[in-house]
Protein backbone atom coordinates (compact mmCIF):
# COMPACT_ATOMS: atom_id res chain seq x y z
CA UNK A 1 0.00 0.00 0.00
CA UNK A 2 1.31 3.42 -0.87
CA UNK A 3 1.56 6.24 1.59
CA UNK A 4 -1.31 8.64 0.88
CA UNK A 5 0.36 11.49 2.71
CA UNK A 6 2.49 12.27 -0.30
CA UNK A 7 -0.35 12.44 -2.77
CA UNK A 8 -1.93 15.56 -1.33
CA UNK A 9 -5.39 16.91 -2.03
CA UNK A 10 -6.38 20.33 -3.28
CA UNK A 11 -3.45 22.71 -3.42
CA UNK A 12 -3.59 26.24 -2.09
CA UNK A 13 -1.91 27.78 -5.14
CA UNK A 14 -3.67 31.01 -6.08
CA UNK A 15 -3.85 30.17 -9.79
CA UNK A 16 -7.26 29.90 -11.36
CA UNK A 17 -6.17 27.23 -13.86
CA UNK A 18 -7.03 23.91 -12.30
CA UNK A 19 -5.48 20.59 -13.25
CA UNK A 20 -6.90 17.24 -12.15
CA UNK A 21 -4.27 14.51 -11.89
CA UNK A 22 -5.69 10.98 -11.99
CA UNK A 23 -3.47 7.97 -11.24
CA UNK A 24 -3.79 4.97 -8.96
CA UNK A 25 -0.06 5.20 -8.22
CA UNK A 26 0.03 7.86 -5.54
CA UNK A 27 3.79 8.41 -5.93
CA UNK A 28 3.06 9.33 -9.53
CA UNK A 29 0.25 11.63 -8.43
CA UNK A 30 2.53 13.32 -5.89
CA UNK A 31 5.25 13.74 -8.50
CA UNK A 32 2.99 15.26 -11.16
CA UNK A 33 1.23 17.46 -8.63
CA UNK A 34 4.55 18.81 -7.35
CA UNK A 35 5.76 19.73 -10.83
CA UNK A 36 2.51 21.44 -11.71
CA UNK A 37 2.30 23.33 -8.42
CA UNK A 38 5.86 24.51 -8.95
CA UNK A 39 4.47 26.15 -12.11
CA UNK A 40 1.87 27.98 -10.03
CA UNK A 41 -1.06 25.81 -11.06
CA UNK A 42 -3.83 24.64 -8.82
CA UNK A 43 -3.82 20.84 -8.64
CA UNK A 44 -6.49 18.41 -7.55
CA UNK A 45 -5.98 14.66 -7.47
CA UNK A 46 -7.97 11.45 -7.82
CA UNK A 47 -6.75 7.92 -7.19
CA UNK A 48 -9.14 6.07 -9.50
CA UNK A 49 -11.41 6.56 -12.49
CA UNK A 50 -14.71 6.63 -10.60
CA UNK A 51 -13.48 9.34 -8.20
CA UNK A 52 -12.17 11.31 -11.16
CA UNK A 53 -15.56 11.25 -12.89
CA UNK A 54 -17.25 12.37 -9.70
CA UNK A 55 -14.78 15.23 -9.21
CA UNK A 56 -15.15 16.41 -12.80
CA UNK A 57 -18.93 16.42 -12.56
CA UNK A 58 -18.95 18.38 -9.29
CA UNK A 59 -16.13 20.77 -10.12
CA UNK A 60 -14.92 20.66 -13.73
CA UNK A 61 -11.16 21.32 -13.99
CA UNK A 62 -9.42 23.12 -16.86
CA UNK A 63 -7.18 20.16 -17.71
CA UNK A 64 -7.01 16.48 -16.82
CA UNK A 65 -3.85 14.38 -16.68
CA UNK A 66 -5.17 10.84 -16.85
CA UNK A 67 -3.37 7.56 -16.29
CA UNK A 68 -4.50 4.79 -18.62
CA UNK A 69 -3.99 1.65 -16.58
CA UNK A 70 -6.13 1.88 -13.48
CA UNK A 71 -8.16 -0.86 -11.82
CA UNK A 72 -11.94 -0.51 -12.17
CA UNK A 73 -12.84 2.40 -14.44
CA UNK A 74 -9.85 2.72 -16.77
CA UNK A 75 -8.44 5.94 -18.19
CA UNK A 76 -10.01 5.09 -21.55
CA UNK A 77 -13.42 4.73 -19.91
CA UNK A 78 -13.03 8.05 -18.09
CA UNK A 79 -11.92 9.77 -21.29
CA UNK A 80 -14.74 8.29 -23.39
CA UNK A 81 -17.35 9.24 -20.81
CA UNK A 82 -16.17 12.83 -20.40
CA UNK A 83 -15.78 13.40 -24.14
CA UNK A 84 -19.25 11.99 -24.72
CA UNK A 85 -20.85 14.44 -22.33
CA UNK A 86 -21.56 17.89 -23.78
CA UNK A 87 -20.83 19.58 -20.46
CA UNK A 88 -17.33 18.09 -20.14
CA UNK A 89 -16.34 17.39 -23.76
CA UNK A 90 -14.25 20.54 -24.04
CA UNK A 91 -12.03 19.82 -21.04
CA UNK A 92 -8.63 18.85 -22.50
CA UNK A 93 -7.49 15.37 -21.48
CA UNK A 94 -3.84 14.29 -21.58
CA UNK A 95 -3.47 10.53 -21.37
CA UNK A 96 -0.35 9.39 -19.54
CA UNK A 97 0.91 6.23 -21.24
CA UNK A 98 4.08 4.24 -21.64
CA UNK A 99 6.16 5.68 -24.49
CA UNK A 100 6.23 2.52 -26.59
CA UNK A 101 2.59 1.65 -25.94
CA UNK A 102 1.22 2.57 -29.37
CA UNK A 103 -1.87 0.44 -28.83
CA UNK A 104 -2.84 2.60 -25.85
CA UNK A 105 -2.32 5.73 -27.90
CA UNK A 106 -4.61 4.48 -30.65
CA UNK A 107 -7.25 3.57 -28.08
CA UNK A 108 -6.74 6.97 -26.45
CA UNK A 109 -7.31 8.78 -29.73
CA UNK A 110 -10.47 6.74 -30.27
CA UNK A 111 -11.62 7.67 -26.77
CA UNK A 112 -11.15 11.37 -27.60
CA UNK A 113 -7.88 12.19 -25.80
CA UNK A 114 -6.43 15.59 -26.72
CA UNK A 115 -2.77 14.78 -26.09
CA UNK A 116 -0.40 12.18 -24.65
CA UNK A 117 2.36 12.24 -22.10
CA UNK A 118 4.95 9.49 -21.95
CA UNK A 119 5.85 7.58 -18.80
CA UNK A 120 8.43 7.94 -17.36
CA UNK A 121 7.39 11.57 -17.30
CA UNK A 122 9.97 14.19 -18.23
CA UNK A 123 9.52 17.46 -16.39
CA UNK A 124 10.17 19.63 -19.46
CA UNK A 125 7.72 17.66 -21.60
CA UNK A 126 5.01 17.85 -18.95
CA UNK A 127 5.39 21.60 -18.50
CA UNK A 128 5.54 22.25 -22.24
CA UNK A 129 2.36 20.28 -22.91
CA UNK A 130 0.47 21.87 -20.04
CA UNK A 131 1.55 25.35 -21.12
CA UNK A 132 0.41 24.71 -24.68
CA UNK A 133 -2.95 23.40 -23.53
CA UNK A 134 -3.32 26.31 -21.14
CA UNK A 135 -2.69 28.78 -23.96
CA UNK A 136 -5.33 27.01 -26.06
CA UNK A 137 -7.66 27.05 -23.07
CA UNK A 138 -7.15 30.78 -22.50
CA UNK A 139 -7.64 31.53 -26.19
CA UNK A 140 -10.79 29.43 -26.33
CA UNK A 141 -12.18 31.16 -23.23
CA UNK A 142 -11.40 34.58 -24.67
CA UNK A 143 -13.06 33.68 -27.99
CA UNK A 144 -16.04 32.22 -26.17
CA UNK A 145 -16.45 35.33 -24.05
CA UNK A 146 -16.20 37.55 -27.15
CA UNK A 147 -18.70 35.35 -28.97
CA UNK A 148 -21.12 35.54 -26.05
CA UNK A 149 -20.76 39.32 -25.84
CA UNK A 150 -21.41 39.63 -29.59
CA UNK A 151 -24.37 37.28 -29.30
CA UNK A 152 -25.91 39.33 -26.49
CA UNK A 153 -25.36 42.52 -28.50
CA UNK A 154 -26.89 41.00 -31.64
CA UNK A 155 -29.92 39.67 -29.80
CA UNK A 156 -30.42 43.02 -28.12
CA UNK A 157 -30.33 44.71 -31.53
CA UNK A 158 -32.93 42.26 -32.86
CA UNK A 159 -35.06 42.69 -29.76
CA UNK A 160 -34.82 46.45 -30.03
CA UNK A 161 -35.69 46.44 -33.77
CA UNK A 162 -38.65 44.11 -33.47
CA UNK A 163 -40.08 45.46 -30.24
CA UNK A 164 -41.42 48.35 -32.30
CA UNK A 165 -43.69 45.95 -34.18
CA UNK A 166 -44.45 43.13 -31.83
CA UNK A 167 -44.98 42.51 -28.15
CA UNK A 168 -41.88 42.37 -25.94
CA UNK A 169 -42.58 38.68 -25.30
CA UNK A 170 -42.55 37.90 -29.04
CA UNK A 171 -39.45 40.07 -29.51
CA UNK A 172 -37.71 37.97 -26.87
CA UNK A 173 -38.74 34.76 -28.63
CA UNK A 174 -37.48 36.05 -31.97
CA UNK A 175 -34.16 37.09 -30.42
CA UNK A 176 -33.81 33.68 -28.81
CA UNK A 177 -34.78 31.86 -32.00
CA UNK A 178 -32.52 33.96 -34.20
CA UNK A 179 -29.75 32.00 -35.87
CA UNK A 180 -26.12 32.96 -35.87
CA UNK A 181 -26.40 35.48 -38.68
CA UNK A 182 -28.60 38.44 -39.42
CA UNK A 183 -32.31 38.70 -39.98
CA UNK A 184 -34.25 35.88 -38.36
CA UNK A 185 -36.95 36.19 -41.02
CA UNK A 186 -34.64 36.17 -44.02
CA UNK A 187 -35.75 33.69 -46.63
CA UNK A 188 -38.59 32.45 -44.50
CA UNK A 189 -41.59 33.55 -46.55
CA UNK A 190 -44.37 31.09 -45.90
CA UNK A 191 -48.04 30.46 -46.47
CA UNK A 192 -49.81 29.99 -43.21
CA UNK A 193 -53.15 30.27 -41.50
CA UNK A 194 -53.58 33.69 -39.91
CA UNK A 195 -56.13 35.92 -38.25
CA UNK A 196 -55.96 39.47 -39.59
CA UNK A 197 -57.34 42.38 -37.61
CA UNK A 198 -57.71 45.84 -39.12
CA UNK A 199 -58.64 48.78 -36.95
CA UNK A 200 -59.16 52.41 -37.82
CA UNK A 201 -60.58 55.58 -36.44
CA UNK A 202 -64.12 56.60 -37.23
CA UNK A 203 -64.27 60.40 -37.45
CA UNK A 204 -60.62 60.76 -38.43
CA UNK A 205 -61.37 63.11 -41.31
CA UNK A 206 -63.16 65.59 -39.01
CA UNK A 207 -60.26 65.32 -36.61
CA UNK A 208 -57.75 66.35 -39.27
CA UNK A 209 -59.98 69.16 -40.53
CA UNK A 210 -60.55 70.76 -37.14
CA UNK A 211 -57.09 70.55 -35.57
CA UNK A 212 -53.60 71.85 -36.14
CA UNK A 213 -51.06 69.46 -37.57
CA UNK A 214 -49.17 69.18 -34.27
CA UNK A 215 -52.33 68.40 -32.39
CA UNK A 216 -53.38 65.80 -34.98
CA UNK A 217 -50.05 63.99 -34.65
CA UNK A 218 -50.28 64.05 -30.84
CA UNK A 219 -53.83 62.67 -30.98
CA UNK A 220 -52.86 59.95 -33.47
CA UNK A 221 -49.98 58.97 -31.22
CA UNK A 222 -52.38 58.74 -28.30
CA UNK A 223 -54.74 56.61 -30.41
CA UNK A 224 -52.02 54.28 -31.74
CA UNK A 225 -50.50 53.90 -28.28
CA UNK A 226 -53.80 52.55 -27.02
CA UNK A 227 -54.22 50.17 -29.97
CA UNK A 228 -50.67 48.82 -29.94
CA UNK A 229 -50.86 48.21 -26.20
CA UNK A 230 -54.00 46.17 -26.77
CA UNK A 231 -52.32 44.22 -29.58
CA UNK A 232 -49.22 43.52 -27.53
CA UNK A 233 -51.25 42.44 -24.55
CA UNK A 234 -52.49 39.51 -26.63
CA UNK A 235 -49.23 38.92 -28.49
CA UNK A 236 -50.41 40.24 -31.83
CA UNK A 237 -47.89 41.28 -34.46
CA UNK A 238 -48.27 44.74 -35.95
CA UNK A 239 -47.70 44.55 -39.69
CA UNK A 240 -48.79 47.94 -40.83
CA UNK A 241 -49.65 51.38 -39.54
CA UNK A 242 -50.86 53.87 -42.13
CA UNK A 243 -52.96 56.99 -41.70
CA UNK A 244 -55.29 55.99 -38.91
CA UNK A 245 -55.41 52.26 -39.64
CA UNK A 246 -53.54 49.47 -37.98
CA UNK A 247 -53.06 45.88 -39.21
CA UNK A 248 -52.42 43.22 -36.59
CA UNK A 249 -51.75 39.54 -37.33
CA UNK A 250 -52.13 36.50 -35.11
CA UNK A 251 -50.60 33.04 -35.44
CA UNK A 252 -47.56 34.79 -36.95
CA UNK A 253 -44.60 34.68 -36.72
CA UNK A 254 -45.14 32.02 -34.05
CA UNK A 255 -48.02 29.57 -33.94
CA UNK A 256 -50.87 30.52 -31.59
CA UNK A 257 -53.42 27.75 -31.18
CA UNK A 258 -55.81 30.34 -29.74
CA UNK A 259 -55.19 32.97 -32.44
CA UNK A 260 -58.93 33.61 -32.99
CA UNK A 261 -59.54 34.18 -29.28
CA UNK A 262 -56.53 36.46 -29.06
CA UNK A 263 -57.77 38.52 -31.99
CA UNK A 264 -61.24 38.81 -30.47
CA UNK A 265 -59.86 39.88 -27.09
CA UNK A 266 -57.58 42.38 -28.81
CA UNK A 267 -60.57 43.90 -30.61
CA UNK A 268 -62.49 44.24 -27.34
CA UNK A 269 -59.43 45.68 -25.65
CA UNK A 270 -58.90 48.23 -28.43
CA UNK A 271 -62.45 49.50 -28.22
CA UNK A 272 -62.48 49.54 -24.42
CA UNK A 273 -59.10 51.23 -24.08
CA UNK A 274 -59.99 53.88 -26.63
CA UNK A 275 -63.28 54.84 -24.97
CA UNK A 276 -61.75 57.15 -22.33
CA UNK A 277 -59.57 58.72 -25.03
CA UNK A 278 -62.62 59.31 -27.21
CA UNK A 279 -64.47 60.79 -24.24
CA UNK A 280 -61.59 63.16 -23.60
CA UNK A 281 -61.50 64.26 -27.26
CA UNK A 282 -65.24 64.78 -27.22
CA UNK A 283 -64.89 67.02 -24.23
CA UNK A 284 -61.85 68.95 -25.44
CA UNK A 285 -62.49 69.11 -29.19
CA UNK A 286 -66.16 68.31 -29.63
CA UNK A 287 -65.27 65.28 -31.74
CA UNK A 288 -67.30 62.09 -32.07
CA UNK A 289 -64.78 59.35 -32.76
CA UNK A 290 -64.47 55.61 -32.15
CA UNK A 291 -62.61 52.53 -33.32
CA UNK A 292 -64.00 50.38 -36.14
CA UNK A 293 -62.59 46.91 -36.56
CA UNK A 294 -62.64 44.20 -39.24
CA UNK A 295 -61.36 40.70 -38.65
CA UNK A 296 -60.95 37.66 -40.88
CA UNK A 297 -59.15 34.33 -40.80
CA UNK A 298 -57.59 32.33 -43.63
CA UNK A 299 -54.44 31.46 -45.50
CA UNK A 300 -51.96 34.27 -46.10
CA UNK A 301 -48.38 34.71 -47.21
CA UNK A 302 -45.93 36.05 -44.63
CA UNK A 303 -42.49 37.31 -45.43
CA UNK A 304 -40.17 40.15 -46.20
CA UNK A 305 -41.43 42.07 -49.20
CA UNK A 306 -39.65 44.94 -50.86
CA UNK A 307 -36.40 45.82 -52.53
CA UNK A 308 -32.83 45.75 -51.34
CA UNK A 309 -33.34 49.38 -50.22
CA UNK A 310 -36.63 49.01 -48.43
CA UNK A 311 -38.48 45.95 -47.24
CA UNK A 312 -41.01 45.17 -44.60
CA UNK A 313 -42.24 42.11 -42.85
CA UNK A 314 -45.61 41.77 -44.53
CA UNK A 315 -48.77 39.72 -44.52
CA UNK A 316 -50.57 39.34 -47.85
CA UNK A 317 -53.72 37.51 -48.86
CA UNK A 318 -57.50 37.20 -48.74
CA UNK A 319 -57.97 37.43 -44.98
CA UNK A 320 -56.05 40.72 -44.96
CA UNK A 321 -58.05 42.20 -47.85
CA UNK A 322 -61.32 41.04 -46.33
CA UNK A 323 -60.45 42.40 -42.89
CA UNK A 324 -59.62 45.74 -44.53
CA UNK A 325 -63.00 45.87 -46.30
CA UNK A 326 -64.83 44.90 -43.12
CA UNK A 327 -62.98 47.59 -41.21
CA UNK A 328 -64.17 50.19 -43.72
CA UNK A 329 -67.75 49.03 -43.18
CA UNK A 330 -67.54 48.92 -39.37
CA UNK A 331 -69.10 51.69 -37.30
CA UNK A 332 -67.39 53.14 -34.23
CA UNK A 333 -67.23 50.51 -31.49
CA UNK A 334 -68.23 47.79 -33.95
CA UNK A 335 -66.29 44.68 -34.87
CA UNK A 336 -67.16 43.02 -38.17
CA UNK A 337 -66.10 39.41 -38.34
CA UNK A 338 -66.06 37.07 -41.35
CA UNK A 339 -68.16 33.89 -40.94
CA UNK A 340 -65.44 31.25 -40.50
CA UNK A 341 -63.68 33.33 -37.87
CA UNK A 342 -66.92 34.05 -36.05
CA UNK A 343 -67.53 30.29 -35.70
CA UNK A 344 -64.23 30.07 -33.81
CA UNK A 345 -65.13 32.82 -31.34
CA UNK A 346 -68.89 32.39 -31.17
CA UNK A 347 -68.73 31.05 -27.59
CA UNK A 348 -66.90 34.16 -26.42
CA UNK A 349 -69.37 36.65 -27.86
CA UNK A 350 -72.37 37.59 -25.69
CA UNK A 351 -75.52 36.62 -27.60
CA UNK A 352 -77.13 40.02 -27.23
CA UNK A 353 -74.17 41.81 -28.77
CA UNK A 354 -74.06 40.05 -32.12
CA UNK A 355 -76.06 40.49 -35.26
CA UNK A 356 -75.83 38.64 -38.58
CA UNK A 357 -74.96 41.30 -41.14
CA UNK A 358 -75.88 38.79 -43.86
CA UNK A 359 -73.90 37.70 -46.86
CA UNK A 360 -71.90 40.67 -47.96
CA UNK A 361 -70.25 41.07 -51.32
CA UNK A 362 -67.08 42.97 -50.76
CA UNK A 363 -65.66 45.42 -53.25
CA UNK A 364 -63.44 43.59 -55.73
CA UNK A 365 -64.88 40.21 -54.76
CA UNK A 366 -67.23 38.11 -56.89
CA UNK A 367 -68.55 35.92 -54.08
CA UNK A 368 -70.35 37.10 -50.99
CA UNK A 369 -69.29 36.05 -47.49
CA UNK A 370 -71.27 35.82 -44.26
CA UNK A 371 -70.45 38.69 -41.91
CA UNK A 372 -71.26 39.10 -38.24
CA UNK A 373 -71.39 42.45 -36.49
CA UNK A 374 -70.50 42.61 -32.83
CA UNK A 375 -71.03 45.64 -30.65
CA UNK A 376 -67.86 45.77 -28.64
CA UNK A 377 -68.03 48.91 -26.53
CA UNK A 378 -70.34 50.82 -24.25
CA UNK A 379 -71.08 53.30 -27.06
CA UNK A 380 -72.15 50.58 -29.46
CA UNK A 381 -72.62 51.57 -33.09
CA UNK A 382 -72.13 55.21 -32.36
Amino acid at each position, binding site marked *: *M*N*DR*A*AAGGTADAPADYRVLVVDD*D*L*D*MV*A*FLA*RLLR*DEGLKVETAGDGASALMQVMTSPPDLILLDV*MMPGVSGFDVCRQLKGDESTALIPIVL*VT*ALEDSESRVRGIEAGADDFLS*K*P*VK*REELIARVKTLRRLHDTRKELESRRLAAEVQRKEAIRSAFSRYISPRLADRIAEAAGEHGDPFKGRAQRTSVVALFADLRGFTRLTERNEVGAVVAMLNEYFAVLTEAAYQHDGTIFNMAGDSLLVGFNVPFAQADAAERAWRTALEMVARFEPVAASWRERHGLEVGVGIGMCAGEAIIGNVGSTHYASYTIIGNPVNTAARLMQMAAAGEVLVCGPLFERIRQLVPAGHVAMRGDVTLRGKSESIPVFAVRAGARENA
Partner: protein
Amino acid sequence: MTKNIHTVVIAKDLADLIPVFFRNRQKEVETLRSALAAGEFEQLRQLGHRMRGVGNSYGFAKVSEVGKQLEDAAKGGDKAAIAACIGEYADYLDKVQVVYE
Protein backbone atom coordinates in the same frame (compact mmCIF):
# COMPACT_ATOMS: atom_id res chain seq x y z
CA MET B 1 31.24 13.23 -2.40
CA THR B 2 32.23 10.44 -4.79
CA LYS B 3 29.33 9.29 -6.93
CA ASN B 4 29.06 5.56 -7.56
CA ILE B 5 26.59 3.53 -9.60
CA HIS B 6 24.12 3.67 -6.73
CA THR B 7 24.23 7.44 -6.41
CA VAL B 8 21.23 9.20 -7.95
CA VAL B 9 20.91 12.93 -8.49
CA ILE B 10 17.42 14.22 -7.81
CA ALA B 11 15.97 17.70 -8.24
CA LYS B 12 15.87 19.60 -4.97
CA ASP B 13 12.19 20.41 -5.23
CA LEU B 14 11.35 16.70 -4.99
CA ALA B 15 13.40 16.19 -1.81
CA ASP B 16 10.44 16.04 0.55
CA LEU B 17 8.74 13.41 -1.63
CA ILE B 18 11.69 11.00 -1.64
CA PRO B 19 11.32 9.47 1.86
CA VAL B 20 7.72 8.56 1.04
CA PHE B 21 8.84 7.27 -2.34
CA PHE B 22 11.33 4.89 -0.70
CA ARG B 23 8.88 3.71 1.92
CA ASN B 24 6.50 2.80 -0.87
CA ARG B 25 9.31 1.01 -2.79
CA GLN B 26 10.18 -1.09 0.27
CA LYS B 27 6.51 -2.04 0.62
CA GLU B 28 6.58 -2.85 -3.08
CA VAL B 29 9.36 -5.37 -2.57
CA GLU B 30 7.26 -7.16 0.03
CA THR B 31 4.25 -7.14 -2.27
CA LEU B 32 6.36 -8.52 -5.13
CA ARG B 33 7.64 -11.36 -2.94
CA SER B 34 4.12 -12.24 -1.82
CA ALA B 35 2.83 -12.17 -5.39
CA LEU B 36 5.67 -14.41 -6.56
CA ALA B 37 4.99 -16.90 -3.77
CA ALA B 38 1.32 -16.96 -4.80
CA GLY B 39 2.16 -17.21 -8.50
CA GLU B 40 0.20 -14.00 -9.22
CA PHE B 41 1.86 -13.21 -12.53
CA GLU B 42 -0.71 -10.58 -13.60
CA GLN B 43 -0.15 -8.68 -10.36
CA LEU B 44 3.61 -8.99 -10.86
CA ARG B 45 3.27 -7.64 -14.39
CA GLN B 46 1.21 -4.68 -13.19
CA LEU B 47 3.69 -3.90 -10.41
CA GLY B 48 6.57 -4.08 -12.88
CA HIS B 49 4.67 -1.75 -15.21
CA ARG B 50 4.09 0.72 -12.38
CA MET B 51 7.77 0.64 -11.33
CA ARG B 52 8.73 1.35 -14.92
CA GLY B 53 6.53 4.46 -15.00
CA VAL B 54 7.29 5.94 -11.63
CA GLY B 55 11.01 5.12 -11.28
CA ASN B 56 12.53 7.21 -14.00
CA SER B 57 9.93 9.96 -13.53
CA TYR B 58 11.55 10.67 -10.16
CA GLY B 59 15.00 10.07 -11.62
CA PHE B 60 15.60 6.47 -10.49
CA ALA B 61 16.40 4.85 -13.82
CA LYS B 62 17.28 1.56 -12.16
CA VAL B 63 13.76 1.20 -10.74
CA SER B 64 12.32 1.58 -14.24
CA GLU B 65 14.89 -0.84 -15.65
CA VAL B 66 14.08 -3.55 -13.11
CA GLY B 67 10.39 -2.83 -13.56
CA LYS B 68 10.69 -3.53 -17.29
CA GLN B 69 12.54 -6.79 -16.63
CA LEU B 70 9.89 -7.80 -14.09
CA GLU B 71 7.07 -7.00 -16.47
CA ASP B 72 8.65 -9.13 -19.22
CA ALA B 73 9.43 -11.99 -16.85
CA ALA B 74 5.90 -11.95 -15.47
CA LYS B 75 4.44 -12.04 -18.97
CA GLY B 76 6.50 -15.18 -19.61
CA GLY B 77 5.66 -16.69 -16.19
CA ASP B 78 9.41 -17.01 -15.51
CA LYS B 79 9.61 -17.43 -11.73
CA ALA B 80 13.39 -17.61 -11.61
CA ALA B 81 13.79 -14.41 -13.58
CA ILE B 82 11.19 -12.70 -11.40
CA ALA B 83 12.96 -13.80 -8.23
CA ALA B 84 16.23 -12.46 -9.63
CA CYS B 85 14.60 -9.13 -10.43
CA ILE B 86 13.13 -8.81 -6.93
CA GLY B 87 16.53 -9.61 -5.42
CA GLU B 88 18.23 -7.02 -7.60
CA TYR B 89 15.55 -4.46 -6.72
CA ALA B 90 15.87 -5.05 -2.96
CA ASP B 91 19.64 -4.82 -3.19
CA TYR B 92 19.43 -1.57 -5.14
CA LEU B 93 17.07 0.00 -2.61
CA ASP B 94 19.48 -0.93 0.19
CA LYS B 95 22.44 0.68 -1.52
CA VAL B 96 21.03 3.66 -3.38
CA GLN B 97 22.15 7.09 -2.24
CA VAL B 98 20.41 10.29 -3.21
CA VAL B 99 22.09 13.60 -3.93
CA TYR B 100 19.86 16.65 -4.31
CA GLU B 101 20.86 19.31 -6.79
